[in-house]
């Protein structure tokens, strides 16, 4: 590099290209080979269209960026590097990863300083991931919250389910099919809280949905994080401390079914249960229903059998009592019958003699009865005859005295007859049919009739001598 002299300023100077070219040559001389460098991918900056990748690499300490540099992975190498990485770590290259890169340092007068990444060692990242996992576990244990979710005492039935999943995922579909179409008619209520389930975004997405569910926790018995069809890829976020902490501290039991067969992630470790696949989660929930149903059935069976037994025992008791009662009463009846028979005999005897005595007295009564009335009747007859006689006598006497009186009376009557009086010369004078007893009744010239014993005559009153 040679300095030039500018006339106007009279200072020596270089052109920019000269400087940058100079830098380029220094760097080329200094950094002659590839170096293994540990760095964190702050941002991957992969452009699928061109296939090139321009990761921002950083080194941080306590969140403070200590170093930063732009890197390049050319399209020709990116797929190879990424596939190898994916097969070992089960994660694609992504933001936030700590990687061990093999890189050369390059400088270009236009594009500046950069690193050319020509290889990435996946086992290093795997180790870093394992380290992060260990750190997460240690932190959870240190804070005493590792077993919090496991120690929850959930309801017997996990019937109301908040599902964190992706609506279109196979795992979610498998799960809903199992619980919606169960053969026992068990009824579940489930509600989907959609979230990203893999990659860096999963941490915040799942945490956010957990916060939502927490607001409505009284409506749910359990939270599921289920994922399926994604294989073992993209699970490193489940080792993240923040996410694992959110799961561990969640007030409802969380069951995971994020579908992989290798080592459990921290989230799975702290969850209430890890059932690996969504299908298994579905069967687990149904099994809890079975267990509850079996308890009811057992209780019911025991109840029926035991009640039958108690009732049968009671029946037997009653039967025994019945036998005792029957035997007792039979004996009693027999004894009483004996007593009764003897009583009957004596009664018979007594009554026969009684009847006989009664008969006797009755017979005497009868004879008395037949004798007495005859006597009475004959007495009465005699009395009547005597009364007849008396009556006859008294009537005769009465008649005689009556006859005497009648003849005296007829004598008197005969004497009193006016004919007889007229015979003796007396006459009866009457005026207008009325006997004249008083001359006051007569006037001069009255015509009077005079009756004599034999015949009558009329006369005219010449004078009246009043008395």
């Amino acid at each position, binding site marked *: 590099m040679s300095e030039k002299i500018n006339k106007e300023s009279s200072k020596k100077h270089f052109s920019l290209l000269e400087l940058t070219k100079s830098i380029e040559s220094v760097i080329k001389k200094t950094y002659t080979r590839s170096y293994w460098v540990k760095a964190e991918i702050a941002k991957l900056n992969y452009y699928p269209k061109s296939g090139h990748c321009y990761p921002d690499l950083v080194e941080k300490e306590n969140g403070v960026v200590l170093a930063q540099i732009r890197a390049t992975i050319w399209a020709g190498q990116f797929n190879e590097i990424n596939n190898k990485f994916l097969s070992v770590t089960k994660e694609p290259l992504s933001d936030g990863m700590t990687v061990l890169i093999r890189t050369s340092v390059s400088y270009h007068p236009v594009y500046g300083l950069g690193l050319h990444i020509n290889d990435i060692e996946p086992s290093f990242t795997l180790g870093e991931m394992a380290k992060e996992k260990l750190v997460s576990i240690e932190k959870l244990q240190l804070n005493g919250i590792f077993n919090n979710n496991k120690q929850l005492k959930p309801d017997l039935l996990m019937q*109301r389910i908040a599902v964190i999943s992706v609506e279109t995922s196979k795992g979610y579909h498998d799960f809903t099919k199992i619980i919606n179409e169960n053969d026992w008619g068990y009824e579940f*209520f489930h509600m989907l809280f959609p979230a990203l389930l893999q990659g860096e975004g999963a941490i915040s997405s799942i945490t956010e949905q957990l916060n939502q569910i927490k607001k409505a926790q009284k409506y749910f018995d359990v939270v599921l994080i289920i994922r399926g069809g994604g294989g073992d890829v993209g699970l490193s976020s489940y080792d993240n401390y923040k996410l694992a902490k959110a799961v561990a501290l969640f007030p409802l039991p969380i069951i995971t079914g994020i579908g992989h067969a290798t080592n459990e992630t921290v989230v799975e470790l702290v969850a209430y249960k890890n059932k690996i696949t969504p299908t298994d989660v579905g069967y687990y929930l149904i099994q809890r229903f079975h267990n509850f149903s079996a308890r009811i059935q057992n209780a019911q069976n*025991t109840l029926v059998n*035991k009640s039958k037994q*108690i009732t049968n025992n009671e029946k037997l008791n009653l039967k025994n009592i019945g036998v005792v009662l029957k035997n007792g009463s039979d004996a009693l009846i027999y004894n009483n019958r004996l007593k009764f028979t003897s009583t009957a005999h004596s009664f018979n005897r007594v009554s026969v003699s009684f009847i006989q005595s009664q008969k006797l007295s009755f017979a005497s009564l009868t004879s008395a009865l037949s004798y007495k009335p005859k006597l009475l009747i004959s007495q009465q007859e005699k009395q009547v005859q005597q009364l007849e006689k008396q009556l006859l006598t008294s009537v005769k006497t009465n008649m005689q005295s009556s006859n005497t009186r009648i003849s005296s009376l007829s004598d008197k009557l005969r004497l009193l007859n006016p004919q007889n009086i007229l015979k003796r010369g007396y006459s009866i004078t009457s005026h207008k049919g009325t006997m004249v007893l008083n001359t006051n009744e007569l006037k001069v010239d009255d015509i009077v009739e005079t009756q004599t014993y034999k015949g009558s005559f009329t006369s005219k009153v010449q004078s009246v001598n009043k008395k």
Partner: protein
Amino acid sequence: MKKEIPYTQAIEELEEIVSSIENEDVNVDELSVKVKRAAELIKICKNKLHNTEEEVVSILKDINS
């Protein structure tokens, strides 16, 4: 109508009744009362298996509050 007891309580009471009958702590008069109560509890528990009452609307209301 009185509120139905929670199913957890129901099955506990049910199993209590069953164990008291199992221990033959009951006479025949109590037995019929207990069996009647047990039948009610069984009904509550079985009913729980086949029914839920949650409403998405009220859940969303809580979430968005």
